[in-house]
């Protein structure tokens, strides 16, 4: 009833201001994506024209005659030259590979290990498990700067300065939030389900993987999304922990595109930015529902 009425109310409102509001929001939305579109446009321009004519498409205005304007367009754009430059300069596909490997590896390891840990510390009540829980909560408020020096040095000593090793570092530094979120969920799972499984002869390991983990799926998705967004975009941790001469993730490659010359090759930069955004947009379109739900769930609990 209430819903039906709300729908009527909004229908009435829609007829009153709806068109105008939609128009205003459309304009704001276009402005909102404009920066990305400008980068996309400039990624096809000759280097020299990016700053000489950042928002236009031709080096001579149309008022000077159509032929010159057309000629100006031809002089401004270089096709995919910036892209081939950028891919060569940054070894983009290798960086993409490292980023993908580290992100996927970290997310799988974090979800697997922290869900097990969270289940254990919720079900087994001892002083030790209580301490673990409190430490996890505590780690969530510690900024990375606090541990960056010691963490990166220890990672070096333990030979974790490679894409495989950094996954363990991510598990360690990302454990707090994940354990917290899984614990919150396990508390709501009725004990009877697990007891029934045990009576049917399941070992604790079987109980966890066959009974508890499937129920946890929504939380696992939320945790995956939050951790993936963090790891994929993270710059400081990998730049300190990884041996950056050998292994660069995408954010590191972009930052080093600036540092290696002092000056920035803006042609290559525009292209590499587009290349960096593309996979994110594809992922966003595919998993939009989960991403937005995950963000809401994460914010309310975190």
């Amino acid at each position, binding site marked *: 009833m*209430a819903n039906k*009425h*709300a*729908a009527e*109310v*909004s229908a009435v*409102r*829609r007829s009153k201001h709806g068109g105008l*509001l*939609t128009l205003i*929001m459309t304009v704001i*939305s276009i402005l*909102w*994506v404009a*920066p990305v579109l*400008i*980068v996309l446009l400039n990624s096809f321009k000759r280097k020299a024209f*990016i*700053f000489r004519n*950042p928002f236009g498409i031709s080096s001579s205005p149309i008022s000077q005659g159509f032929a010159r304007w057309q000629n100006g367009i031809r002089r401004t754009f270089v096709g995919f030259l910036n892209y081939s430059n950028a891919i060569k300069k940054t070894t983009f596909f290798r960086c993409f590979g490292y980023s993908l490997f580290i992100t996927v590896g970290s997310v799988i390891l974090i979800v697997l*290990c*922290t869900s*097990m*840990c969270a*289940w*254990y510390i919720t*079900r*087994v009540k001892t002083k030790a498990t209580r301490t*673990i829980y409190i430490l996890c909560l505590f780690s969530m*408020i*510690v*900024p*990375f*700067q606090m*541990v960056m*020096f*010691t*963490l990166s*040095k*220890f990672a070096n000593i*333990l030979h974790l300065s490679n894409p495989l090793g950094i996954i363990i*570092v991510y*598990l360690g*530094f990302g454990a*707090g939030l994940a354990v917290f979120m899984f614990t919150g969920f396990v508390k709501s799972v009725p004990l009877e389900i*697990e007891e029934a499984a*045990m009576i049917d002869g399941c070992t*604790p*390991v079987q109980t966890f993987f066959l009974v508890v983990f499937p129920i946890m799926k929504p939380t696992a998705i939320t945790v995956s999304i939050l951790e993936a967004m963090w790891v994929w975009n993270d*710059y*400081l941790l990998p730049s300190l922990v990884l041996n950056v001469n050998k292994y660069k993730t995408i*954010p590191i490659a972009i*930052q080093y595109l600036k540092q290696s010359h002092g000056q920035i090759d803006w042609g290559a930069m*525009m292209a590499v*930015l587009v290349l*960096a*955004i593309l996979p994110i*947009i594809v992922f966003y379109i595919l998993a939009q529902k989960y991403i*937005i739900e995950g963000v809401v769930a994460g*914010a309310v609990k975190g």
Partner: protein
Amino acid sequence: MQKANRKYWWLFVLPTMAAFAIGFIIPFFYGIFLSFCKFTTVTDWKWIGLKNYTKILFVNGKLDTTFLHSLWYTSLFTLVTVLIINLAAFGIALLLTKGIRGTNIFRTVFFMPNLIGGIVLSYIWLMIFNAFLQKISQTIVSNQWNAFWGMVIVVCWQQIGYMMIIYVAGIQNISADLIEAAKIDGANSWQVLRNVTIPMLRPTITICSFLTLTNGFKLFDQNLALTGGNPAKQSQLLALNIYDTMYGTNGWQGVGQAKAVIFFILVAVIALIQNRLTTSKEVEQ
């Protein structure tokens, strides 16, 4: 059942805890210890007491204002971004819960920048800022206020969509009956907003304010990529100031670590206040 589970601690808890020890526990406590030492790596430490902490403010007996400037600059930056992001996100959330056509597309568009990382975002905007500023012969690092507003714009663009999503969820949780009842009592839409929507949204407002507050305080990537702290360290936010102290000058690692401890205390205090506020709200409901 507890007993049966307990045997498996090595399988369930050990992997996470081993990584947690390497990734957090040991670095954290060792970091506190090192803030009282002079060191260049983790093994060559020498106990020097509180000297690192005094060196944050006094160098060779003279007051060094770099850290204080950065603290003040960060506080101002945080204040401005918290206000703009929350007001804008709330406003957009109100519009997007009115059932206007295209709501889903708008929501998708506004949220999109949040998925792009700080480094990528900053270079997108660096190009745009410098393209505009070259018309008045300036760049983003011509002075600290160009840098300030540049960072504000980037951070707003990134976070408004995120906070909007949380506000939308909050607004949708308010029961339609409540708003209807207010309307029947003769409240106009401004009164409904002031006396029903905003009070009911208080928990959401608290969450969003504190998320933006800690995000502002901890901002690093955007600062590094957009301004690098230039001109002359004047646009350094706290996180970058700590990074610069630690890795910029040899022999100053201890001072950097001491600054990091102070930074941690600041962030922890904010988090504790938030925790107090959100839990007391929960009790009220």
